[in-house]
């Protein structure tokens, strides 16, 4: 499973089971009310635990977490550093 699919599965099963949510790595997850602030914080903690990374506060910006692709790029980079 790719990182994108892993994150999508987590969002679909644990954060927002909305049936209309389709796997689209480039879709903007922020604008359409897919994740609220608590769900986003839950996702951040899950990413840290699942991939064994620490997300620095300055990295916590829409550019890094707005889409599944952006998250996968960020996770890959953070794993390399770790």
């Amino acid at each position, binding site marked *: 499973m790719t990182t994108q699919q892993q994150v999508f599965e987590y969002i679909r099963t644990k*954060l927002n*089971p909305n049936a209309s949510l389709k796997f689209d790595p480039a879709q903007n997850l922020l604008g359409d009310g897919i994740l609220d602030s608590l769900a986003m914080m839950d996702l951040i903690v899950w990413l840290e635990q699942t991939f064994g990374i620490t997300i620095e506060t300055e990295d916590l910006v*829409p550019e890094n977490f707005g889409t599944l692709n952006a998250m996968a790029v960020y996770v890959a980079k953070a794993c390399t550093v770790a």
Partner: protein
Amino acid sequence: MLLHERLHDVAGRLGDKVALSFAEGALTFAELDRRSRALAARLRALGVGPGDRVAMLGDSCAALVVALWATLNSGGIAVYLNEQLAPEALAEVLDDCEPVVVIASRRNADAKLSRIQPGRRMGRVLVLEDEGGLFVGSPGNGGRFPVTTSESDVATIVYTSGSMGRPKGVCLSHRNWNTTVRAVSTHMPITADDSYLMVVPLHYVHGLMQLFVHTLSGATIHFAKDFLFPNVVLDQLVCTRVTGFSGVPYHFAALIDRSTFLQTGLPHLRWITVTGGRMPPERVAQIRKAKPALEIHIAYGQTECAPRATALDPRRIDRKPDSVGSPIPGVTVLILDDEGQEVPQGEVGEVVVAGDNVMVGYWRQLDATARVIDALRRLHTGDLGRLDEEGDLFLAGRRDAMIKTAGERVFADEIEAVLLQCEGVVEAVVVGVPDELAGQRIEAHVRVEPPLPAGDAATQHLADRIRQQCLSQLPFARAPKAYHIWAEFPRKPNGKVDRQRMLQGPGSVLRAAVG
């Protein structure tokens, strides 16, 4: 004086000053007042009259703030709806308040309203994006209508979580709001020199309160788009140079842990207000150390008292970081025992609030109203607390099974009702467990029949299914975060569920905890 008359007054004095500022643009007080009266004319034409409800559904935006003031101008009652509600839950709220008009964003109209079955009481739907001309018309007769509203009439209904499942609409009158606005703007104080960053949605009573307080004080409100990224919110605190900011403890925990809030200089920020739950004293101490000049106001109240009852004088915060302070001007707080008698000072009893901020009642729920408002029009909050010798209030838990999570109040039985609809679940108990970020975390314990075959896979599968059902019916914040599956609950000799043993661990009965 009515709220919209006060806005008209402020607009007369501060017409060119910015009242509302969004990423998309700003609105002056004069323009806010003019557009409100123009839309009021439109609402009147659509049949909105005194006492009729107008519901709003969407992200905070200029149009939905104009809609609030327009509704008041037309003599109607404004209702902000929670975007996070699933269509069925939304339909229940609409059935309850029977709006004549619903003003919604295109996204909400498509994803939510269009999925509500015909026959529910939705009224006429105006889609913001389709209504370019909504606010540009002339106010006609000056937007002044034969006003039959008086200060005691209801201005807003705020839907709040109630026990027993049914949505509860808290009716707050012009007088209720005037009382809070006067008290808060005096004791903070808030003036036309102030500005405020709003991160709370308007369907929360706290957001609505800050809107009334700041606009009617002539202050400018900057709206943050959301609270997804604490650093983005911090940037807005820096860029907008606001003098005030408020939130629930969760907002501050996120800012402290996930942004450079403590390290960033915020010379313009004069005060913050923390409300909607207990902020751990260690968090208060962190902020005090990093920003010694910043006033920290700890406030307490309920939607039912519009919503402020007490606030802690910032000068006392180092001495009493655990207190929620003393009653705001015009409000009295009493501590009563089960017989309704005042307890001796220092003893714990139920917190009871009296004053013109106490709600008119729950919308069309006389029995529920009578359970919390007594013959002397005092609000029995259900919170337990004690007053110290200086009159400062310390909270000490709840009389009932209410859970406070990330500023949301959640009654166990409404979540249990959702769990009981899940196939196989025959009994459900919902509890709040301590959580560093959210204050309390909601966890579900369910007893299932037939008992599951031994094996983690079956239990996991069932827990996943129950989680999906909860998430499809409840906003994320209100859905349980952990599911415990039991073959049999631990019980007391009288057969009642033994919550203590349930929380302590598996004991002798089969239990599977699924995160």
